[in-house]
């Protein structure tokens, strides 16, 4: 029950950490009104505040949150598509800041992004061959001569299970289905030979029946190529299915993290609990029939469900205006990360397994008594 240092290396050593973010902060300035100009105030959308994240080789880390929680901004910051307001991004331990040019190209050779909408992320006037060859050429992996290029292209398509390659290589995006397009987008990301993939809601635009195919493909690729994957999603059930580790974000801050099983099965932060209770769950019917959780649906019906304003975020814990367990301290101080007791004991001995933590005063030693009262 101690405050975890946010930069602590996992037991497995620092070598397996590919990408690391610390105190990552992004504020987007908003237009100043006249009054604000006089008062000297600089209004900004606090999209991401003080976010720490580790991507490890061969592991999937899920970032779960509602729309507007800042999860996509985190991905774009990690891909260095936005300049950050504060904090550090380290690739293999080396602090990196790139603003375009050669250094960005070198960085993007290591860290690639997969976007949400494969209908928009592929250029409709170019063929699959063009998309992939271009990525290979930009990252200097095109090989010598035509035969090597062809082999590299065939290999990429085979990796994303678009076989036989000659059936897909000369197709235009509109000739492919949504799932096939997303596979092409993944192949394009792989063409750079990345070590980390940042997948921003890679399946939410796809049909339900083909989502799992894409997730399983990403998992196979992770295993074959030892990739570090950041999986951004609003669907916590898919995070449980696909990710080794899950972090939950609310209103620009991380509120809970740990291995996916602990976070989804024993959620600690009140927000994570709300998220899990709200997810559609057919098995809930059986539970209700059995008379369980009579107060659960009632409590879900309360409140407005409004996400906090990010221009004037609530003081202290950003969830406190909606939190059923809010205490005095929650409104005053931002909660640091507290280890969640009991839950992690079985995972702590295993190397590299993240401890389960929550940024919530309920888990601080001083307030543990209040927490027991509130949770009862």
């Amino acid at each position: 029950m101690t405050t975890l240092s946010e930069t602590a290396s996992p037991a497995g050593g620092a070598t397996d950490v590919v990408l690391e973010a610390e105190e990552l902060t992004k504020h987007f300035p908003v237009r100043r009104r006249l009054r604000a100009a006089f008062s000297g105030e600089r209004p900004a959308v606090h999209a991401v505040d003080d976010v720490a994240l580790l991507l490890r080789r061969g592991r999937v880390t899920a970032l779960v949150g509602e729309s507007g929680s800042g999860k996509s901004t985190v991905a774009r910051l990690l891909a260095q598509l936005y300049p950050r307001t504060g904090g550090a991004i380290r690739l293999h331990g080396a602090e990196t800041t790139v603003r375009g040019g050669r250094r960005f190209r070198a960085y993007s050779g290591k860290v690639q992004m997969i976007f949400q909408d494969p209908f928009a992320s592929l250029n409709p006037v170019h063929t699959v061959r063009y998309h992939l060859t271009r990525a290979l050429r930009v990252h200097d992996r095109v090989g010598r001569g035509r035969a090597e290029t062809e082999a590299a292209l065939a290999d990429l398509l085979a990796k994303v299970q678009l076989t036989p390659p000659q059936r897909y290589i000369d197709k235009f995006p509109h000739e492919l289905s949504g799932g096939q397009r997303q596979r092409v987008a993944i192949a394009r990301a792989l063409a750079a030979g990345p070590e980390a993939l940042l997948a921003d809601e890679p399946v939410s635009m796809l049909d339900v029946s083909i989502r799992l195919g894409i997730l399983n493909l990403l998992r196979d690729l992770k295993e074959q190529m030892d990739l570090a994957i950041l999986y951004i999603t609003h669907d916590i059930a898919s995070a449980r299915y696909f990710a080794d580790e899950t972090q939950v974000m609310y209103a620009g801050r991380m509120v809970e993290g740990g291995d996916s099983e602990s976070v989804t099965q024993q959620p600690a932060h009140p927000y994570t609990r709300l998220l899990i209770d709200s997810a559609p769950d057919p098995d809930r019917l059986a539970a209700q029939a059995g008379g369980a959780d009579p107060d659960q649906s009632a409590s879900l019906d309360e409140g407005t469900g409004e996400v906090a304003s990010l221009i004037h975020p609530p003081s202290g814990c950003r969830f406190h205006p909606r939190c059923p367990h809010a205490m005095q301290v929650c409104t005053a101080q931002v909660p640091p990360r507290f280890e969640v007791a009991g839950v992690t004991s079985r995972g702590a001995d295993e190397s590299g397994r993240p401890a389960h933590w929550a940024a919530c005063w309920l888990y601080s030693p001083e307030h543990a008594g209040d927490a027991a009262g509130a949770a009862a």
Partner: protein
Amino acid sequence: MTLHVDEPAAQHADADEAVLRISGLSVDYGVGERAVRAVSDVSLTLRRGEVLGLAGESGSGKSTLAYGLTRLLAPPGVVACGTVIYHPGDGSEPVDVLALDHAGLRRFRWAQTSIVFQAAMNALNPVDKISAQLTDVIKAHRPDLDRAARIARARELLGLVGIPADRLDSYPHQLSGGMRQRVMIGMALALEPRIVIMDEPTTALDVVMQRQILAVFTRLRKRLDFSVVFITHDLSLLVEFADRIAIMYGGRIVEEAPAAQIYRDPLHPYSDGLLHSFPALRGPRRELAGIPGSPPDPRSLPSGCAFHPRCPKAFDPCAREVPILGAPGEAGPGAAQGAGGGARSVACWLHTSDRSTA
């Protein structure tokens, strides 16, 4: 293609309860040679007070079906054949919705059926106040009410969906997405319709908001006793929320059954695959595969059962003949009658009486 077996006989038994009866409805986009059939030969009965879920992937025809039966279909969409009969329930004659003239349609719409559109939060007019938009429909349908009475009703409607009445003078941009969605639901209930069609009403919302909206909606439905057609691609949501579920694939209904039965014992391989496409939040972690392949293009549907190229259990008749929606197993269509609310039907050669493997 026009061969059509009627719905299971169970639905004739409680015909008095039927609010809306769709039979043999087909909807095309375009006419003549190049017409694309988006919905073919759909028969469904919506009973009083029930939530009928329509599930399917993009291109399965679920939204087209909703627009077809409310006559909101914009050209080049045309209803090729079929009937939609509305039973007013107050003793007056059933109405053939597809044959209504312009004036009749105006009276029917919103007063009897209302619709909550996909991405409904963008369906509000951004330059009008909420009050104006809520009272507009009351003004059109109840000319006898004066302004004060209309405003009072609008106030009441906001209260119904849990929005403080002082938001009446807000513009849509001053409300959050969830509040706008609730305003849309309030608007749909303004004239106390007997049927509310909800086309992906919560798809654009976060899960927390989705659950709150559905809770509000469930409460209202218990109080006001209307029937709902709930269209979504999220089958796991329907299992929780709907009484009966019809699953569409390639423009046809492939299975229809009470929600709990679909969840526990899906008969059609597509329903089964769809249910196993949602990772579970609780219980053991299982390896899931989804369904191989992609949903078919309505312009070039596979022969026979549209699902057969993706079906793990396909056998010889599947590619040749379109299976007919009927009661499963050896039992003839009549046998389902005894089951009462348990009546179910499936369109799959695996479950057709003479070839049943069950």
